[in-house]
């Protein structure tokens, strides 16, 4: 049966599809967002290579930092990993948030974005859908790092509950933080420039923090930056959860920062999305 090329439109069959006048009510905001999340999953199914970024990169980071700096910074790799693993997890996941902007930008260049924008549905749904898909990737990256860490001798005193809570906080913050990238994805012209801007923001943010070393060893001016860097607070919060010494002050700081991110960058994203 090779109907695809020798196809002739038949008035009856095409007409039958057309005359079935059953326009259902619009989907709810949540259901539309979930549908877009499903689309992100389908994309992972068809282009599994994209998971490379959330597996290979984190594994490399963990191994590199544990063995490269472990001896020098904390006496031995197995001691250092107790300190650095939550930090590596945070910095790797925050790093991969930039792919959100790249994905948004790629979609805009293709016509499919036009179709989504011309549908009568809750406007932010496509954006929320991207981020739901990304939340899956963040969880996956966190899990990979955790497993590698456990193999290398990471023994979190916070136990299962602490670790799960730490990862949940990290994924939640990254979801909020990704709105920065959806904004740039809509704002900038090319994939390359989105990557460029992301690097420019993410490198200082992740390195000038308490991920790798205790800030008290740094000069005062640097400490000033490190102490207001949201990544520092996120790392402290996640470290406290995994370390079994829950720091509710830091957790509250992170949650408020996440809410502010969504409020500012979510609004800017939607403004750009509607204007485009």
């Amino acid at each position: 049966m090779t109907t695809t090329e020798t196809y002739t439109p038949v008035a009856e069959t095409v007409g039958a599809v057309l005359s079935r006048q059953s326009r259902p009510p619009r989907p709810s905001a949540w259901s539309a967002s979930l549908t877009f999340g499903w689309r992100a999953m389908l994309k992972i199914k068809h282009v599994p290579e994209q998971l490379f970024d959330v597996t290979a990169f984190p594994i490399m980071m963990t191994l590199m930092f544990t063995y490269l700096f472990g001896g020098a910074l904390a006496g031995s790799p197995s001691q250092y990993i107790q300190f650095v693993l939550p930090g590596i997890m945070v910095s790797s996941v925050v790093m991969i948030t930039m792919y959100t902007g790249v994905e948004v930008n790629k979609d805009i260049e293709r016509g499919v974005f036009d179709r989504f924008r011309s549908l009568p549905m809750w406007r932010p749904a496509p954006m929320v859908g991207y981020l739901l898909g990304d939340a899956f990737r963040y969880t996956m990256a966190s899990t990979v790092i955790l497993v590698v860490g456990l193999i290398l001798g990471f023994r979190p005193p916070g136990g299962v509950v602490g670790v799960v809570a730490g990862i949940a906080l990290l994924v939640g913050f990254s979801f909020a933080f990704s709105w920065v990238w959806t904004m740039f994805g809509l704002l900038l012209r090319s994939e390359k420039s989105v990557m460029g801007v992301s690097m420019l923001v993410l490198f200082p943010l992740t390195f000038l923090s308490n991920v790798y070393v205790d800030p008290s060893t740094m000069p005062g001016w640097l400490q000033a930056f490190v102490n207001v860097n949201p990544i520092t607070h996120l790392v402290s919060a996640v470290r406290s959860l995994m370390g079994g010494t829950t720091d509710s002050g830091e957790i509250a700081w992170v949650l408020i920062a996440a809410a502010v991110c969504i409020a500012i960058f979510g609004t800017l994203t939607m403004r750009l999305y509607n204007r485009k």
Partner: protein
Amino acid sequence: MSDLAIETSGLVKVFGDNRAVDGLDLAVPAGAVYGVLGPNGAGKTTAVRMLATLLRPDGGQARVFGHDVVREADAVRGRVSLTGQYASVDEDLTGMENLVLLGRLLGHRKAAAADRARELLEAFGLTDAADRQVKNYSGGMRRRIDIAASILNTPDLLFLDEPTTGLDPRSRNQVWDIVRIVVAHGTTVLLTTQYLEEADRLASRIAVIDHGKVIAEGTPGQLKSSIGAGSVHVRLRDPHRRPEAERLLAEALGAPVYIDADPVALTARIIGNGRDEAAAEQASRALMELSRAGIVVDDFSLGQPSLDEVFLALTDKPAA
């Protein structure tokens, strides 16, 4: 007397200092195919994007079924759908997945969306390709899945932006057939194209646009009578007889004859001679005059006016 599906007045869109759409006035009656004919860069896509609420106009007004495209964008979105010039489906997903995705986004439940997707794939001859990624589809199949996606909810107005550009003749015919069926079911279609032939075959009214403005509007018959029914191209055996042939053709056809760069070729426009005679008949009479004068014709062809000729006739300059 039918209502208007689209009404625009003085619609403007400016990109930098480029006035892509520059005071566009359109009145598109509901229930038929309306053709928008224009060369590259005329502003067709820009106009369609404004009407489909994807782009905000910089000036003027546009209403779709009475709803303002800016202030009542959501109401407009509920009644229109768009098949863009470039594929507006997700190339990474399969045909089936694309249609289910859209069905879900339009509010169908999972099972209903899957049923609907299967029906559409069947009706568009894509059942065999249902589980292949769209990026592996041929150009014609892409167009069909794209149109299938656009009629998933049987829109009241369908925008087709250059639906046949780049398709082979068979795929083009398939698209034409689909458009006819869609219109017969009551959906208004706004079709942009660069081909007069396409607008002529499908549309009941045509607007010719250039530099973002309408430069002519009317039924295909009206347009053709203002620009001529076509042209006849002739190649002579003996280049020395060309001046004589030129004079004979001009007399027989009552229209100007163009001298081609090729020393043996001539092109004459055929315009209505008031006797309602078919273009082919006029052309054959003109050719007879040549043979009577003993001028040997090696080859000739009769064509519908091309977009270039339409523009030549309407603006006295070739399409920009």
